[in-house]
């Protein structure tokens, strides 16, 4: 074997070793959570990397809690509403910002970007007052409002960039066909913007699904909580016990929908994320 062939083989080996390290780093915590969730509490602290038999007691424990089911329902309502509102507003805003020439358009774009730079904590108390005033405290509405505020800038920016790349003549052709701006947006542009909408929609969904600080602050009762807060507040029989089994089971339950969503939209996300990158 020549030196060159050995060098090539070593490089390939090194490449795959790096891949394995990366995959283990990324996936192992989740994998361990899954394993833990299938163990009965008696085996919890025996270190093991494989499952011998499936034990669903943790899942039954979590799912028989009425408040956890309510949390899942709240999370779904909040996340879906945030995605729907953000996409609707983002799409219409991107039409205005990307297609209509008006004075101060760049300034509006900068303002939108500026809004997204505030850390959550900075606006927390102010937002709390707003939500109290609007009578949305301890209801999904308050969370929908606050999440939308933080999701919209990103949505608007990505969709506007994408919208600007669609050729002008396409819109003019629609105008010649007698289409109103709304028809142009929904019948001509929207079908072409699915990759961008899938990307932004999914990221908005994940953000809303995972959010913790606002969810903790703006809700009071178990029945109005979302999943991240609910999991954090799962408690054992005494203050000295952390019920790892149910916590892991709950984590797996709320992670699986995200994984499925990402897998479904995987290709679109990739094309959507790179679509804006090449031609700027």
């Amino acid at each position, binding site marked *: 074997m020549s030196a060159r062939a050995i060098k090539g083989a070593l490089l390939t080996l090194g490449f795959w070793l790096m891949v394995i390290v990366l995959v283990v780093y990324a996936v192992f915590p989740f994998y361990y959570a899954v394993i833990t969730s299938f163990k009965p509490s008696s085996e919890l602290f025996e270190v093991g990397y494989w499952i011998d038999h499936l034990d669903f007691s943790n899942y039954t424990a979590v799912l028989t809690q009425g408040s956890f089911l309510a949390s899942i329902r709240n999370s779904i309502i909040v996340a879906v509403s945030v995605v729907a509102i953000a996409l609707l507003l983002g799409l219409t805003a991107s039409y205005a910002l990307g297609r209509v020439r008006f004075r101060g358009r760049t300034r509006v774009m900068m303002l939108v970007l500026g809004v997204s730079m505030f850390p959550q904590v900075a606006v927390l108390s102010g937002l709390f007052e707003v939500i109290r005033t609007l009578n949305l405290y301890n209801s999904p509405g308050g969370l929908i409002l606050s999440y939308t505020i933080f999701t919209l800038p990103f949505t608007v920016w990505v969709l506007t960039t994408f919208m600007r790349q669609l*050729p002008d*003549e*396409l819109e*003019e*052709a*629609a*105008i*010649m*066909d*007698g*289409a109103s701006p709304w*028809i142009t947006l929904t*019948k*001509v542009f929207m*079908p*072409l913007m699915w990759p961008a909408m899938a990307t932004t929609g999914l990221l908005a969904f994940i953000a809303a699904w995972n959010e913790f600080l606002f969810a903790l602050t703006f809700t009071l009762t178990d029945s109005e909580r979302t999943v991240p807060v609910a999991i954090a507040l799962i408690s054992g029989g005494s203050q000295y016990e952390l019920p790892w089994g149910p916590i892991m089971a709950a984590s797996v339950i709320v992670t699986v929908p995200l994984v499925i969503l990402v897998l479904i939209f995987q290709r679109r996300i990739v094309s959507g994320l790179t679509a804006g990158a090449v031609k700027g």
Partner: protein
Amino acid sequence: MASVQLDHVSKRFGSTHVINGVSLSIEDGEFVVFVGPSGCGKSTLLRLIAGLESITDGDLMIGDQRVNNLTPQERGVGMVFQSYALYPHMSVYDNMAFGLKLEKAGKETVAERINETARILQLEPLLERKPKALSGGQRQRVAMGRAMAREPGILLFDEPLSNLDASLRVQMRNEIARLHGRLGSTMIYVTHDQVEAMTLADKIVVLRAGHIEQVGSPRTLYERPASKFVAGFIGSPAMNFMAATLVDATDTGCRVNVPGLGDIDLPFQARDVARGASLSLGIRPEHLQPGDPEGDNRFDVVNVEYLGNECCIYLDNATDTFLTSRVEAATPITRGDTVSLHLDPQHVHLFDSDERALARTGADRQ
């Protein structure tokens, strides 16, 4: 009625005057071509008629109606874009039916119209395809079909053939000509390709810097250009221009002196021009014939282009006059030869210092 009248139409973008008081009348069923160098405003003028740009000043009439403030759909115009601009996510059928559906036409009416349009454009086998599965020529036809489907009285074309390769361009040119004969609708066509303009047009409008330089039939523009600009713009290879000095002018004609060619008698009315004034003499390459060198009349052959059916000869003389001559393909002239040049006075054009054509005398006058 789908006649079009432009009355002192102007367009300004901010302080830039793109169209300056253009007045033009287009008859029903006429095929009009706008030509001009890039940036002359020909596309803008088309977009003003289409309704994609607003008119700053002046009136635009379609039929008997002032349409300045109507939408493109209300004006009854259809447009074919340079990039086709087909809706990528819709089938050929849906592309063509989009406008009709928006008009809330009944399902049978839509199907009937689309099938009829598809038949005219030979698109029937392609109706279910998406644009990306079509060739350039097919996309072009779909774009025309979409513009035609609503049966507008006026069809607008914005450089529709410039994205096609040469052979397809000739084919589509013929199809557009046939289509015009068949539909009989008014067509307005923008191009920078003068072959398209000459072959398609009933009437050519030459634009320059936002105003009309000349309007006329292809023959008029070629044989009787009103200005040096039109003379140089229409025709390929371009018309030759030589500096000339007016020697004498009478009722029946005038005599000019051209360096290298000597004194020439021409049938032009030049009595209003001062003797000794400098003029510009124009002659098309096919009317400039080479012969054996004689006296001062000596031109060096710089290059010979063999085109199969003819040859183009590029010439230069001691006073740096660059000329082009078009001769038959079998010419014995080769690069490096010295020839004399002879021009036919009947085919000469004479332009004054303002670049306007001088009037012809006698029976030749228009």
